[in-house]
């Protein structure tokens, strides 16, 4: 980093004040050592005094740093010369032996101080890089835990804020040159407070811009581009936490490293999103193919009957007996109805799949829904009343449901039950308040039933159990499940005790029951009197 930001300058003045104090302490220590030497050993004990000075210098270099140690060394050498070497009270040195003592003492002082200083620098840089590694590690871990893009951005911002002691935001690019939204560690925020020009400069030049940088430094925020594999995906905005302070933020190498991690994480998230969409498309494609093959087979059968019967009527109608003509017409009619039902269920499931099945809820009575279903089944199949037995609890609550859709569910369940049980076995429809929050509907038949492993699979699309006598598309139960779940209910199948299949579903009772006003007073009296 070649910038020389104002904040760094400010820190230096701070440092110099502390350094002065330490220098003074270094000098003072030399003074104290001299006084101690004079008091304890006196002028004769040169060896011990010299060792004492060296000890003190080593101590200063360890505790106070390189410069105070050098100063203490110089001061010690001068004091040693002045107080302990003859002639006393002068800086002159008489003999060569004393000069060697003096010089070697000073040399050892410098040597010890240099060694100590180097050690301290290594320790400091080790501490710094440890802190840096730890912040980056925490950031990466938090980013990996995120489940959504917002969560990820917020986790990243929190980490950057706590490490760099700044307030940070992410400006997300909209694919083009503009920004579509801003995220802070608290969620979405407005873009208005941002210096968009500086942010755009940073995004376009892939270089930090704004406060604390060489580019557009008048901005009140520092903008660091978030650079991923595919270029700039957004900009990290950092500013001082306290708006009133004069403290200036600048993009330290740690912040830039964190920005890189964040950019990569965001990009990874985008990629996995795209992968997810691709998977859904593949699944849709698979379903479409299954629909096509199933539809072409199941629709062809009734179409074949209709085509051949109608062409017989067209070509040979006049040569046929009346009974035969009627039979042909009846076949056409039946197969057309069948075709219509197949198409209807196919359309419903397609709409359900596309999420376009709209649920129009209103207060409805299940009794009416059942009545309507029974009427439709009777009309269509001409069944005797004994085939479909109903048992409805008398005081069922009204439910907020889509009556048309629930009618469809019941119709599908009953059609299934009729198809899979013999012609002379009844089907039972029971509805009761399951508990306070649910109404339970069951449709029970006494047919052959299903194998246990099929009990859950029957709700799958196009699933038909092996011994299917009819020719449905296998969509009835899929649709039923879709509708019941859209209502907030559950549907499941279980064996009927003694043989057969029971399909049950729940419908939730509304938390806020319908409130009815009392009848008007005029109406309280019965009319028939």
């Amino acid at each position: 980093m070649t910038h020389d930001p104002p904040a760094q300058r400010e820190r230096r003045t701070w440092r110099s004040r502390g350094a002065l104090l330490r220098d003074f302490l270094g000098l003072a220590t030399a003074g104290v050592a001299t006084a101690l030497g004079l008091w304890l050993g006196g002028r004769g004990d040169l060896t011990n005094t010299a060792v004492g000075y060296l000890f003190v210098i080593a101590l200063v270099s360890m505790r106070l740093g390189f410069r105070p140690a050098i100063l203490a060394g110089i001061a010690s050498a001068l004091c040693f010369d002045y107080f302990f070497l003859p002639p006393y009270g002068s800086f002159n040195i008489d003999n060569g032996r004393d000069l060697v003592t003096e010089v070697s003492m000073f040399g050892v002082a410098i040597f010890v101080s240099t060694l100590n200083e180097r050690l301290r620098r290594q320790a400091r840089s080790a501490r710094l890089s440890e802190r840096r590694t730890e912040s980056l590690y925490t950031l990466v871990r938090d980013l990996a835990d995120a489940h959504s893009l917002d969560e990820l951005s917020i986790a990243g911002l929190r980490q950057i804020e706590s490490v760099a002691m700044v307030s940070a935001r992410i400006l997300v690019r909209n694919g083009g040159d503009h920004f579509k939204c801003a995220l802070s560690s608290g969620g979405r925020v407005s873009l208005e407070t941002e210096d968009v020009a500086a942010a755009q400069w940073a995004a376009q030049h892939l270089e930090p811009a704004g406060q604390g940088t060489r580019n557009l430094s008048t901005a009140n925020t520092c903008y660091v581009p978030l650079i991923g594999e595919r270029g700039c995906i957004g900009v990290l905005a950092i500013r001082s936490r306290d708006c009133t302070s004069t403290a200036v933020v600048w993009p330290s190498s740690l912040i830039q490293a964190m920005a890189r991690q964040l950019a990569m994480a965001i990009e990874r998230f985008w990629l996995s999103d795209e992968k997810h969409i691709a998977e859904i498309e593949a699944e849709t494609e698979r379903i479409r193919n299954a629909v096509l093959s199933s539809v072409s087979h199941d629709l062809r059968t009734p179409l074949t009957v209709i085509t051949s019967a109608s062409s017989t009527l067209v070509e040979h109608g006049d040569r046929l007996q009346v009974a035969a003509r009627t039979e042909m017409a009846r076949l056409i009619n039946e197969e057309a109805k069948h075709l219509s039902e197949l198409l209807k269920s196919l359309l419903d499931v397609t709409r359900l799949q596309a999420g376009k099945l709209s649920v129009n809820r209103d207060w409805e009575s299940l009794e009416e829904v059942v009545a309507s279903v029974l009427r439709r089944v009777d009309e269509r199949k001409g069944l005797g009343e004994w085939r479909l037995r109903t048992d409805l609890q008398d005081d069922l609550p009204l439910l907020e449901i889509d009556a048309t859709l629930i009618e469809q569910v019941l119709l599908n369940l009953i059609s299934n039950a009729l198809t899979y049980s013999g012609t002379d076995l009844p089907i039972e429809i029971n509805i009761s308040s399951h508990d306070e929050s649910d109404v339970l509907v069951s449709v029970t038949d006494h047919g052959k039933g299903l194998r246990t492993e099929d009990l859950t699979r029957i709700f799958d699309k196009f699933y038909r159990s092996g011994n299917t006598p009819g020719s449905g598309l296998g969509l009835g139960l899929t649709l039923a499940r879709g509708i019941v779940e859209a209502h907030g209910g559950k549907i499941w199948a279980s064996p009927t005790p003694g043989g057969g299949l029971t399909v049950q579903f729940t419908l939730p009772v509304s938390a806020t029951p319908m409130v009815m006003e009392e009848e008007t007073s005029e109406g309280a009296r019965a009319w028939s009197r």
Partner: protein
Amino acid sequence: MESVTNGTSILIVEDDRKILRVFLTSLEAEGYRVVDASSGQRAIEEVRTRNPDIILLDLGLPDIDGLDLVPTIRAHTATPIIVVSAREQEADKVKALDAGANDYLTKPFSVPELLARIRVALRSHAMVGTTPRTVISFGDYHLDLERRRLLRHEQHVLLSATEFKLLATLARHPDEVVTTNTLLKEAWGSAHQGKKGYVRVYMHSLRRKLESDPTRPRYLLNEAGLGYRLNTSE
């Protein structure tokens, strides 16, 4: 049958030629005079110039939304309208009925179904203008609108005011579907729009009083998502 339908004119508003052909063939075989219109604009002209006895209106038209056509025709004539809709237009059916249509049919439907609906609509229309019937009978019941009572085998059936209003509203349009909104308005007034639950609660108690098996009602039939129909043909 010939004498009933002879000379009765039906306007079919339908843009599909094939469907139209089938209707033409089967309705003419029944003795109806059939006029057709393939667009909403044509339909309005035909209503003005020919004054048909009944209108069969498809909601999916090329030029005008069939739904908008109902009030336009209603402004001009009281001729019964039977709305024909595809299944995707469930919500439109209710709107059409509330706008003044008399009945509906959902595609695909059979010709006997169509003929039955036409007969009901014509019968109830024939009563318009004549002194309204004051006693309507269905099954064992006789509903006396004037004296406000319901008799069964000469026995009074005790009804609350609201129950009576609901039954009377249905009985004024026997065998025709009456929407839940109309029932609400008639029995509670327009201040209670949207509270369909009210109707459900009172229909429930009506069924308890009138039907021997409320889950297989013979008279008070409901049409899911639409409304109710009083069946007088049993």
